[in-house]
């Protein structure tokens, strides 16, 4: 009896192996590795430490926001405002520090700005019931406009007394020579993965994306969770903005323009389901990596940069197509 009970507990529908082979993230990872190996052999410039350093660092800004975006997508939502929120947070940081405040005050203001924007998005979506697409599209426009207002549409490259600290935060490599942005990305990915898998909050994100009505009937605080998830998404954009500011050493009002599409692409390529109910932190990172490897390799192979969009778009379609085929096979 107790034996059959524990058997029942341990029994799964599929082994880990078939689970792995059916996982989009796994195949995208294979694609990243294959492309990297091919490029190392085809060119002399790919596998240089300088290029790899560039790739890993370039990946991080899209990847960090893709973590937040994945959480939103899991609930069945979308956040188009992330590129503009990145810009607004960076600008608030820059303007605050330029005015002579310390880096701590600057970062706090930037984070608070992002959280407020996210809370407005979330409240309009969860309590007023407006569609996420429309709300965040509006915020895309509002946040960038506010960034222009805050800076008078100028470039800020003087960050006051803590100027050096900020540049070190984004451009340094405090841990074993790994670029700081990469370290932040890994920490945030671990936290996101943990939250999604091991907390009640994470479980509720999947429940809302799977069947919002069921989540409501069973007592899940759907509205509160939705507000929280848009705040997290904006926060991820804010954090990426802070690190990027330190790395670039300057903020203009057009940074992050069009970034939302790259971020959504990374999340979707990494297996986040736009219909809601599916997605992983690891997938978001790997999706961002594939996009960066495509971009980088086109440059190294001397292919016209105009082709970038076609290749990245092709990767998105291929990933979604793969997901459809995998589901089709399963339902047979």
């Amino acid at each position, binding site marked *: 009896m107790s034996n*059959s*009970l*524990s058997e*029942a*507990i*341990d*029994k*799964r*529908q599929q082994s880990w192996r078939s689970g792995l082979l059916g996982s989009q993230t796994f195949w995208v990872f294979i694609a990243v590795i294959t492309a990297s190996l091919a490029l190392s052999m085809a060119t002399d410039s790919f596998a240089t430490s300088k290029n790899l350093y560039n790739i890993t660092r370039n990946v991080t800004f899209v990847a960090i926001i893709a973590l937040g975006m994945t959480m939103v997508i899991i609930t069945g939502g979308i956040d188009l405002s992330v590129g503009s929120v990145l810009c607004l947070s960076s600008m608030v940081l820059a303007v605050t520090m330029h005015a002579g405040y310390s880096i701590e005050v600057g970062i706090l203001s930037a984070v608070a700005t992002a959280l407020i924007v996210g809370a407005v998005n979330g409240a309009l979506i969860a309590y007023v019931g407006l569609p996420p697409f429309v709300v965040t599209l509006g915020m895309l426009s509002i946040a960038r406009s506010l960034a222009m207002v805050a800076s008078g549409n100028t470039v800020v490259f003087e960050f006051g007394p803590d100027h050096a600290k900020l540049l070190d935060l984004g451009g340094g490599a405090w841990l074993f020579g790994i670029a700081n942005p990469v370290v932040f990305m890994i920490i945030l990915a671990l936290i996101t993965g943990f939250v999604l898998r*091991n*907390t*009640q909050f994470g*479980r509720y994100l*999947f*429940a809302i*994306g*799977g*069947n919002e*009505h*069921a*989540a409501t*009937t*069973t*007592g*899940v605080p759907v509205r509160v969770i939705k507000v929280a998830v848009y705040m997290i998404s904006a926060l991820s954009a804010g954090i990426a903005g802070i690190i990027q500011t330190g790395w670039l050493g300057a903020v203009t009002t057009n940074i992050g323009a069009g970034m939302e599409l790259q971020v959504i692409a990374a999340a979707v390529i990494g297996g986040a389901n736009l219909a809601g*109910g*599916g997605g992983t932190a690891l997938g978001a990172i790997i999706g961002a990596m594939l996009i960066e490897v495509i971009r980088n390799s086109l440059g190294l192979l001397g292919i016209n940069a105009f082709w970038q969009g076609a290749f990245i778009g092709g990767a998105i379609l291929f990933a979604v197509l793969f997901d459809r085929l995998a589901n089709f096979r*399963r339902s047979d």
Partner: protein
Amino acid sequence: MGLAAGGEGWLRLAVLELRHISKHFGAIEAVKDVSFSLEAGEVIGLMGDNGAGKSTLVKMIAGNFRPSSGTMLMDGAEVVLHRPLEARRHGIEIVHQDLALCNNLTAAANVFLGRELKMGVGPFKILDYKAMYRRAAEIFTELKSETRPRDLVKRMSGGQRQAVAIARTRLSDAKIVLMDEPTAAISVRQVAEVLNLIRRLRDQGITVVLISHRMPDLFAVADRVIVMRRGTKVADRKIADSSAEEVTGLITGAIETV
């Protein structure tokens, strides 16, 4: 009052008793002066055509609506249910017709949805997967269902989905389980599975109120049938003393009352 005649001459306390319950929405009287009592371990079929008042009645028992007049007693004491949560606290659970399941989650995750087991200290609590898998497996064994805790609901049969929804009611110490059309949209073989689940609940002393349009299911599993027509109770019969023809007649009005 408060006592209902049980089998073999025993008198048992009613788990739930409705006394002269009415509900009107404006000028429309959805339920008119309905009284009945439910015993522990009894399966009651609640029948009636669309608009007969059965869902209004069920919603009052589940705490969605408050009666306009009349009283409800549980174990002999009067209860007033303002919200579904209060009904749940009194041991009244409802299995919705749509089951309220998340297809993308496992059976165990669905069973514990909104009531997850956690471990840890203070605000740092994480999901206790092991405990939830174990408890879910125990409940499925208890229900003699072959549903496995780690299986995703999207790959389950209709009968297994029903088992997951019913398993939720076993988390709390439910006394009454209200089931809304549990056999409406599933295959014949799975119907048998669901009827067995209902028998398991009954065997554990739980009162099951079965709202169904399917006459054969009712006669297979119910002890008693209550028929509603135009807001009033027209019959309260032991299944053994009734027949499908009689119940159909009562529903349509071909037979006035018994």
